[in-house]
């Protein structure tokens, strides 16, 4: 009879890369995202123009060596506005996703773990929020609270927490009934400890994956609000208000509206790739 070591070596020895590097999707998305974020961070180094400085003698110029993407209707350099717009939109989107993530996860965990009428009430509250179409509620809230990034954060938080709550609640309901939880209860661990040390870590991976697409939705919301004139207040550059002001020049200078949109799509693509890649990698083996 062969010994254990012989058994192990007789099987094909295959070195495996660390988990996070195994998904090509994740690597591609992360690389693209890194490029975009780098461009945003390095904005002052990549352009010498001030994005909010108007120059009415040089309006609507076509792309040239001085202005790689031309100028807009107020003489502002488009490339520079694009880079600084990235700073604005990305920063707001990444921050905006944190509050719903934390609040929604917490509420969902409580709801799924405690069940009973606490769960019932929270679910009805979720249904109330979900009854309003996303943009309708965001716009109405931003309108009520006045323009500015603070309103955007608040509005997005009030609307987006529900998705995380639903995910976490569903997972918690299942996890609660697993044997390791029952064992922990028998072992005398308190509810809070079980919930936060044992159940939540297993449940959080789905939330992280979802958060990626949530950031995309937040970028879209910010950009849409910008387009409608309800977003980041001018003159701060934002991809949305760039598209809006470019719309009137569609026949002659279509690049003013097109380019910011393409950038949004590419950013969204990067985030979706990261999300899908994470889903692949974090899938329980």
């Amino acid at each position: 009879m062969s010994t254990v070591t012989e058994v192990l070596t007789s099987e094909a020895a295959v070195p495996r890369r660390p988990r996070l590097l195994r998904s090509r999707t994740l690597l591609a998305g992360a690389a693209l995202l890194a490029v975009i974020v780098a461009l945003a961070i390095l904005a002052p180094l990549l352009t010498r123009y001030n994005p909010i400085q108007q120059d009415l003698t040089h309006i609507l110029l076509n792309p040239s060596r001085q202005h790689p993407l031309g100028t807009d209707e107020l003489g502002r350099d488009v490339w520079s506005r694009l880079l600084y717009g990235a700073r604005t939109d990305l920063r707001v989107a990444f921050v905006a996703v944190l509050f719903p993530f934390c609040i929604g996860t917490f509420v969902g965990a409580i709801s799924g773990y405690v069940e009973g009428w606490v769960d019932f009430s929270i679910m009805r509250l979720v249904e109330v929020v979900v009854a309003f179409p996303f943009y309708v509620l965001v716009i109405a809230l931003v309108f009520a609270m006045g323009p500015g990034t603070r309103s955007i954060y608040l509005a997005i938080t009030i609307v987006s927490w529900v998705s995380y709550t639903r995910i976490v609640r569903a997972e918690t309901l299942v996890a609660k009934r697993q044997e390791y939880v029952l064992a922990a209860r028998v072992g005398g661990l308190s509810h809070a400890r079980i919930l936060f040390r044992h159940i939540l870590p297993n449940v959080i991976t789905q939330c992280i994956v979802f958060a990626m697409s949530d950031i995309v939705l937040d970028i879209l919301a910010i950009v849409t609000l910008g387009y409608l004139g309800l977003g980041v207040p001018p003159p701060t550059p934002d991809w949305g208000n760039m598209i809006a002001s470019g719309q009137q020049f569609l026949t002659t200078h279509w690049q003013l509206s097109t380019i910011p949109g393409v950038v949004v799509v590419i950013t969204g693509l990067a985030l979706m790739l990261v999300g899908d890649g994470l889903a692949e990698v974090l899938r329980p083996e």
Partner: protein
Amino acid sequence: MASMNNDDGNEPLLEVRDLDVEVPSGRGHVLAVDDLSFAVRSRESVGLVGESGSGKSLTLRAILGLLPPRTRIVRGQVSFSGTDLRAMGKREMCKVRGRGIGMVFQEPMTALNPVVRVGEQISDAARRSLKLSHREARSHAVEIMKHMGIPDAESRYDVYPHELSGGLRQRIMIAAALVSRPRLLFCDEPTTALDVTIQDQIIKLLRHLRDETAMSLVYVTHDLAVVTQLCERIEVMYAGRILESGATEEIFQRPRHPYTLGLLKSVPRIEVPQASLSAIPGSAPTPSSRPSGCPFHPRCHFGGPECWQGAFPLRMVQPGHASACIHDDRCADEATRELVIL
């Protein structure tokens, strides 16, 4: 298709030769079924015995062309009634399924469509294969349901799968598999998901149907006891290969492969007082971690270094009895010493 009706007693009804089936794994593909060969004659019932993960269900599916996505046959021949199944087009293969070979799945709750009435799931096959009208198919199905021992067949026709008990659901599935009167029936562990008493009933039913219609049977299971009730021949499968093949009685009395011996020793006997349960040490390898040489050698107490490399094909060790083990004699001796005869 003249050869389909060939009822020659000498030629096997189903013949599988050198079958390799690939499944997707973390790094490409691996072989889940490896160099598999066996045959089934007319009116013969063969048991395909092995643990889960041995590739038994995959073998059945491969023969019928029902492999899941990214799983495929990469080598081998499959012939049914003299016709090469692998060379068949889709439409011809549909004719073989149901009418030539039928299949009963393991879990009726997932194998029956939950949103279609059970009776329709029996009659839809009948309508096509027997060219019956809607009403004819319905009454035909009700007849079969009665034949399967389903009470209140007429009203049960319109019921949904979730409204029936496990045993009744299995009878429905057997009815649907047999409605086109196949000459060969595949059974993929049809009683594993059922209570022991229901198991018994289903096995009796299968035996009765088999005797009545003179069809052949391939019965896949991990349960040795069931095999003795239904099958006159056994193929023992492990890690995608057949390790031993022979008549049921012969194999149970004098197994000639250490794996089979281990399986038989681990069956607890109520008549014999045992100090402890015997089990085969270790566990069966997954398709991506199969050892080289004899696949069973890591868990075997017979062999030595000669078993770790090389190929160990099935060889005839006695008339009608084949084994893949080169120590089959010693195995048979130990069996005679240690096994309690049933």
